């Protein structure tokens, strides 16, 4: 091979580097272009549009008239809004802790090298893959006050079984909570199980040598080392619980007199925007929900430093 003149080589590498840089930029932008355009059109711009709509009165075809804070004023005077807000917070406040505790219990029990792990895992996850309409439909049948399986079982245990799950205003939200717990245990359990499997066996061996009981091992080793996954599960569960809609929509008809005791903010958003066709008011409702979710998530992100254990 011929020996090249060093100066020539130098400029040509510089040129080549510049070329690669330009080349990289061209391909980089080309590769992200479809997703970037899609996200801007379908997600980023719509955020601003929803904020805009919340200050407007919107006609069926999307023409809007500016009405200032009227939607928000209407909302703060709307008992349905306050009821939906408290229903939503109550639902999340009860459903999430119970689900997280039960899915942690299931994950810990499944992490004990017992037989049948994959069978249990498959069964626990089953609710997650069913269409919510089908899930809500079967629960509606199970909760039926006269012929539903749940009241039949309660009666066979010797209790008074005249429980109006789907019409007693004090119980309707509990019915939705039960379905929510049942639907979400499997998903959270799998996330937590993955976390448990990462914990090194050495910790337990050392603890056993030191004579620590299983219960103590759980609280001193398992739980602290599982906190990153627990945190993730908690944050995502709260976000999705605050958006509860499907089950309420299918289990409760519009004519159900207890609807106001069970409707959530997303239900109110849907009802106002697409049944009553008031998309401006619906947008204001959803803005408030998003703000609530952001605040709760931010508090958790700050609070995690106190209890989440990242190595």
């Amino acid at each position, binding site marked *: 091979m011929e020996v090249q003149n060093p100066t020539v080589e130098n400029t040509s590498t510089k040129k080549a580097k510049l070329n690669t840089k330009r080349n*990289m930029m061209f*391909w*980089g*932008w080309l*590769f*992200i272009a479809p*997703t*970037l355009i899609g*996200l801007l059109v*379908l*997600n*980023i711009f*719509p955020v601003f549009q*929803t904020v805009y*709509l919340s200050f407007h009165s919107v006609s069926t*075809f999307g023409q809007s008239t500016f009405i200032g804070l009227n939607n928000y004023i209407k909302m703060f005077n709307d008992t349905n809004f306050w009821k939906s807000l408290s229903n939503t917070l109550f639902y999340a406040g009860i459903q999430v802790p119970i689900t997280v505790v*039960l899915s942690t219990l299931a994950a810990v*029990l*499944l992490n*004990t090298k*017992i037989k*049948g792990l994959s069978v*249990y895992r*498959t*069964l*626990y*996850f*089953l609710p997650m893959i069913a*269409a*919510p*309409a*089908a899930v809500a*439909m*079967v629960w*509606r*049948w199970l909760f039926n006050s*006269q*012929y539903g*399986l749940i009241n039949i079982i309660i009666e066979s245990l010797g209790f008074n079984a005249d429980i109006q799950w789907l019409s007693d205003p004090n119980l309707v939200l509990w019915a939705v909570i039960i379905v929510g717990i*049942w639907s979400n*245990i499997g998903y959270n359990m799998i*996330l937590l199980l*993955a976390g448990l499997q990462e914990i090194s*066996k050495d910790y*337990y061996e050392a603890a056993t040598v030191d004579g620590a009981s299983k219960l103590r*091992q759980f609280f001193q080793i398992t739980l602290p080392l599982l906190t*990153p996954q627990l945190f*993730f*599960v908690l944050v*995502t569960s709260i976000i999705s619980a605050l958006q509860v*809609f499907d089950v309420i*929509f299918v289990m409760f*008809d519009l004519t159900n007199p207890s609807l106001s005791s069970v409707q959530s903010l997303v239900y109110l958003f*849907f009802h106002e925007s*697409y049944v009553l066709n008031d*998309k401006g008011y619906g*947008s204001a409702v*959803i803005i408030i929900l*998003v703000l609530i*979710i952001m605040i709760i998530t931010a508090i958790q992100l700050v609070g995690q430093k106190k209890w989440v254990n990242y190595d």
Partner: protein
Amino acid sequence: MHKDLNVKTKTLIHVILIIGAIGMVLPFVWMILTSGKTVGESISIPPQIFPESFRWQNYSKVWNVLPFVSFFINTGLMIFFRIISSTLFSAMAAFAVAKLDFPGKNIFFMIVLTQMMIPAQIFLTPQYLLVQNLGLLNTVSALVIPGVVSAFGTFLLRQFFMKLPDELMEAATIDGANIWQIFYKIYLPLAKSGLISLAIFTSLFAYKDLMWPLIVNMSQNKMTLSAGLASLQGQYATNYPELMAGSVIAIIPMVILYVIFQKRFIQGIASTGGK
């Protein structure tokens, strides 16, 4: 964790897990049992657990009442186009973020993360107005549109591409391949398991989504399985055997998919959470 569990503890664990499993499965079992009963059997007191003879007529009846064939086709097409479009675009974007260096990359990734963190209902009305203005209400395109790109997919696949070595790229550049060829011929096949996970998630999300198909496609023959089934409830308030037959029909496709791809489902989910 517990190498030295005694028989007693193991039995106790099984008992707890079995009780839980019964709770998980019972609604499905009851759904199937009810779907084979006559209305009379379903509301008999004392309750009748098994139908006298399984009434398949409930299935044929509900099949004729609702355009289930359209539901299946619409759901299938929605999932098919969303998978093709969002996996390809997400893979391209994820590859660029993981392996290429260019100005604007970080801002783009911030947009991806932002989209993932914002509750989806805030996009809904503007998306609806967009579809309406394009004259696409009551079409399969309306079902596909919110899923043509995926921030979640970009995020998920980025993790897969990051795990692959950079050296592959350098070697291929020396051999004269351009970046598209490097992506398509070298990296993409190596990220196959990520692509499959994403395809599974895309199908599951699309199949379970209720509100979007409900608002954009009001005409019955353009509905998805999820929305179509929800529309059944109003018409049939009391005929539970037929409602349950409809529910069984609607959950069967995902159950089959789940049985086939079970490991992928579980690995896919486990890979999205945690640290």
